[in-house]
């Protein structure tokens, strides 16, 4: 009975014909779609930026965002360390690193929301007010949404950790989450440069 | 590509090409070549072009049509021949020839099409350069598309019209833009088309080669009235064109000195603002069928909408066309006449229309 109802086919193996893990192959393909999504958004942003007045990004708070970039890099480090931890079978450490990821990610998102509220309520930069604003809010909000989804994913990974689902032999879900999270970090590294610094 | 031995299951040697299929190949090829040449020369799909650019495009079209017809006949010919020749006899359960490929053939039918399309590209490029080439003595026209009418402005003469006039044999350089959404300026008989896009100027040119009147069509979906966004281009002889220019300048001056002859002025406004494109009005020679007829407006305007005087009704119909829609018609009339027309012009138009009994 349980065999019939199980969602896993009888001889399914995560390691497939090419010797790679399905889930890892899947997440990398997903990241390829994300590359294209952000490229389209960045193309739109650059177009808008080149049409608006130069120096439109001077209203942005660079020290605060540089701090925020540091926060996100820290969260990435935590995820990398969490993978190293589970490789050695240290489940508790894995959990702690993931909790720290949650903390750093949450801080990043809070600062971003704070930045939004400040910019919109002061009227310095709005999505409808200028071309730069349109591009800025579209790109950064999609990134923010990705961070938010990452936080949910991280929470799930913590729950799975506490349920004892991971071991040095089987921690693909941690790796897959990590790949997603690092990618979100990379996007921010690029965005910080082309939106805030250039 | 692995070459399997071409043996049938019973061991007899089979060949992909016997003498009758060789004959068929030659026959299909010959028919394809003849059909291609005939179609290319006759080009039955396009009537004569009315512009020098159109003539060049038609030549290119004929060449492509010839090539396309030949390829078409070739493929359909082989398809039909195979269907007839290789259909299974009712009880035959055996398999066909186990041929997996033929490297020579495959190289050939990759290379030949590639050469053909590259050739077409080069030829197309040369035509493209020719049709885009500006002429020294061209006349300039600024074209503005708006929902749902065309406006033509001649910067050299400072006149604005709703109908395009160009002199025979002289290139007209059109600079297009849009006051609202995207439009596309197209004169089918002249084969030329260009989008009119807000915030930027696009350019195209037409050189009339035959006297006559040709429709201008909007080819980019621009809203409810897209289908009826039309005007026309008139190719005049040189003297006729000059006369027309003078009459337009004269009409403009008369308009500036206001209603010396209110009827003539009204008539002029009807044509200047493009009312004639959609409405019928015998007095002004307008035959549009998209909007309600304006004939006899003066005698029925008073009863059209309860509570509105005849004058209020006509004025509203011009400046707020969406407020009341005549039954069986669509709300497609441009709503920006209150901005495009001066108060004076609206007054004159109302007066003129009320005079149509």
């Amino acid at each position: 009975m349980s065999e019939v109802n199980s969602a896993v086919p009888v001889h399914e193996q995560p390691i497939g014909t090419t010797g790679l893990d399905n889930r890892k192959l899947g997440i990398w393909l997903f990241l390829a779609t994300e590359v294209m999504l952000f490229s389209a958004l960045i193309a739109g942003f650059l177009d808008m930026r080149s049409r608006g007045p130069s120096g439109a990004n001077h209203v942005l708070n660079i020290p605060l965002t540089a701090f925020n970039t540091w926060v996100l890099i820290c969260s990435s480090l935590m995820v990398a360390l969490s993978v190293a931890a589970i490789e050695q079978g240290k489940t508790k450490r894995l959990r702690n690193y993931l909790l720290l990821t949650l903390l750093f990610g949450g801080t990043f998102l809070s600062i971003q929301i704070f930045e939004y509220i400040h910019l919109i309520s002061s009227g310095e930069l709005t999505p409808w007010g200028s071309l730069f604003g349109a591009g800025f809010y579209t790109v950064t909000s999609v990134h923010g949404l990705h961070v938010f989804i990452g936080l949910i994913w991280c929470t799930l990974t913590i729950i799975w950790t506490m349920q004892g689902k991971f071991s040095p032999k089987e921690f693909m879900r941690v790796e897959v989450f990590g790949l997603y999270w690092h990618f979100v970090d990379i996007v921010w590294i690029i965005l910080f440069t082309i939106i805030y610094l250039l | 590509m692995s070459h399997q031995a071409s043996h049938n299951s019973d061991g007899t040697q089979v060949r992909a090409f016997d003498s009758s299929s060789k004959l068929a190949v030659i026959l299909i090829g010959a028919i394809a070549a003849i059909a291609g040449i005939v179609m290319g020369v006759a080009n039955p799909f396009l009537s004569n072009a009315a512009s020098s650019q159109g003539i060049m495009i038609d030549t290119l079209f004929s060449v492509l049509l010839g090539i396309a017809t030949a390829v078409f006949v070739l493929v359909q010919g082989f398809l039909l021949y195979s269907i007839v020749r290789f259909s299974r006899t009712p009880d035959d359960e055996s398999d066909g020839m186990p041929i997996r490929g033929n490297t020579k053939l495959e190289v050939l039918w990759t290379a030949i099409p590639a050469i053909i399309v590259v050739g077409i590209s080069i030829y197309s490029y040369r035509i493209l350069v020719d049709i885009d080439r500006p002429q020294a003595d061209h006349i300039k026209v600024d074209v503005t598309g708006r929902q749902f009418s065309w406006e033509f402005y001649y910067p050299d003469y400072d006149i604005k019209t709703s109908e395009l006039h160009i002199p025979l044999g002289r290139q007209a350089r059109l600079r297009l833009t849009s006051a609202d959404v995207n439009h596309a300026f197209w004169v089918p008989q002249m084969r030329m088309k260009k989008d009119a896009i807000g915030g930027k100027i696009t350019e195209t040119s037409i050189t009339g080669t035959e006297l006559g009147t040709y429709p201008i069509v909007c080819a980019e979906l621009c809203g409810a009235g897209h289908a009826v966004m039309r005007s026309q281009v008139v190719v005049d002889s040189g003297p006729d064109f000059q006369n027309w220019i003078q009459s337009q300048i004269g009409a403009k001056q008369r308009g500036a000195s206001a209603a010396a002859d209110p009827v003539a002025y009204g008539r002029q406004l009807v044509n200047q603002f493009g009312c004639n494109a959609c409405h019928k009005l015998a007095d002004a020679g307008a035959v549009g069928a998209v909007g309600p007829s304006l004939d006899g407006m003066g005698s029925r305007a008073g009863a059209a909408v309860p509570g509105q005087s005849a004058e209020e009704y006509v004025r509203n119909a011009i400046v707020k066309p969406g407020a009341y829609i005549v039954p069986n018609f669509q709300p497609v009339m441009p709503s920006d006449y209150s901005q495009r027309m001066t108060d004076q012009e609206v007054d004159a138009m109302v007066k003129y229309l009320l005079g149509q009994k």
Partner: protein
Amino acid sequence: MNHVDPVEAEKAVKPHRYPTSRTYILVFVALVALTILEVIVALIEGGLKAPLLLGMSAIKALLVILFFMHLKYDSRWFAFIFFAPMALVIPLIWISLIR
């Protein structure tokens, strides 16, 4: 791409060649240092500013990809999947910048 490199497959099955925590921390330090450098470069004006900034952020992105995401240690397939789209990104961004 017709057959699977056995070494490649071996790597994928036993992903225990990942870097140690020490490497991660070194990468982290480099990332932070580059960020600080970027902010400093952003303050100065000059023709070199844009290429410098873009170069530094590209290096940062590469560091994360190669070490945090293990692309340096993992199957080449993943690198191919991730970097191949970049070839398409170039015309896309370039086209939208032309007037």
